[in-house]
């Protein structure tokens, strides 16, 4: 549950930026500002280490790259 002043990371329709550290089958470990997270990558596969992903609710939603 979020506290006042802290963005809700669970329900909010916001996403978190994560750098891919490793990939294993349908999941990747990403490094975010809040630490390491495991995320499902079905919706952005294939994924390689070093890529930046927007992740939300345990799932990677989009690849982030220079426009």
């Amino acid at each position, binding site marked *: *549950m*979020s*506290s*006042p*002043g*802290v*963005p*809700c*990371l*669970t*329900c*909010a*329709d*916001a*996403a978190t*930026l994560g*750098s891919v550290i490793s990939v294993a089958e349908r999941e990747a470990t990403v490094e975010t*500002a809040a630490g390491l997270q495991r995320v*499902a990558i*079905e*919706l*952005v*596969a294939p994924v390689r280490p070093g890529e*930046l992903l*927007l992740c*939300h*609710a*345990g*799932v990677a*939603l*989009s*690849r*982030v*790259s*220079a*426009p």
Partner: protein
Amino acid sequence: MKYLTEFRSGEYARSLAHELAGLVEPGEQVKIMEVCGGHTHAIYRHGLEDLVPTEVEFVHGPGCPVCVIPMGRVDDAIALAERPEVVFATFGDMMRVPGARGSLLEAKARGADVRMVYSPLDALELARRHPDREVVFFAIGFETTAPATAVTLLRARAEQIDNFSVFCNHVTIAPPLRAILETPGLRLDAFLAPGHVSTVTGTRVYDFIASDYARPVVVTGFEPLDILQAVGMVLRQLREGRCMVENQYTRAVRDDGNPQALAALAETMRLRESFEWRGLGPIPFSGLRLAPAFAAWDAEHRFELPGARVADPQACQCAEVLVGAIKPPECRVFGTACTPERPLGTCMVSSEGACAAYYSYGRLGRGRAAQPV
């Protein structure tokens, strides 16, 4: 981290603020609705109201997924959670949202097995670990969150996990915007469209706002420089008499969205004929239910629900806040009967709710006269 720190530069923010000041005429009023609760939160957290010209007013839209869930659906969730065989999994903020029968947190205190999860995949893991229990996931959110539910359903079907189901309350972003634009007497000049929803939907979903309602739309990210730059893009459109959908958040949003996510949604979910929104009432084709092929994982098929429609508390003015008709402090119970500790309305529950953002960041009676730039 790349794409984070450079979008939080105070120096660039001040430079952008100077630029914005030159894009408005003294005394004019420009009302821009930031649709997404994440934008509302970012605007207050970074003090952006004080960086835009005084002629620009942010109007807070309906894009907080917690805030738009009606009380009747919360009561349905509580009824599910109180079934003895059920483990009820929910995102954290939904635990405090009041229904007519209290909140999920209060149901948990009475003995219901309610668990907070960060992902629907966590709920599926609960089902794997507890094959003797029925795990129900309370699915809420816009097109940003719905793909996670879709991925979870596809995994549940692939693994034939039959003690898992979804109570689906996902909603879509375009119908409430049309409903707001049809509100009599509402004056809005432009929209900041939600960046993360748009990673899934793409930008074309907003075309009707420019073509049918002649309002500029700018899809934007959530860092302070993203939002300031988007305000500049809006002001330039207005100044030049243009109405189009522009994409400020090009590093993450493509015009056609995420085709894989859209395909997962199309496979697992269907539009409901109508869905009730808190503050906005029933809106046609605005909510999602599970597709018939996923009926085995649909909590509304597997369990009997009360399904009662519950009117919002009379004192609560969430409805007017959600369409931008009033500012949060103008609500008659703001900060008195309704606080983040004891929310009466949903806009005070989630940190992305407009009322909670106002309350948390001290926007009460702050004068706009002094510009820090």
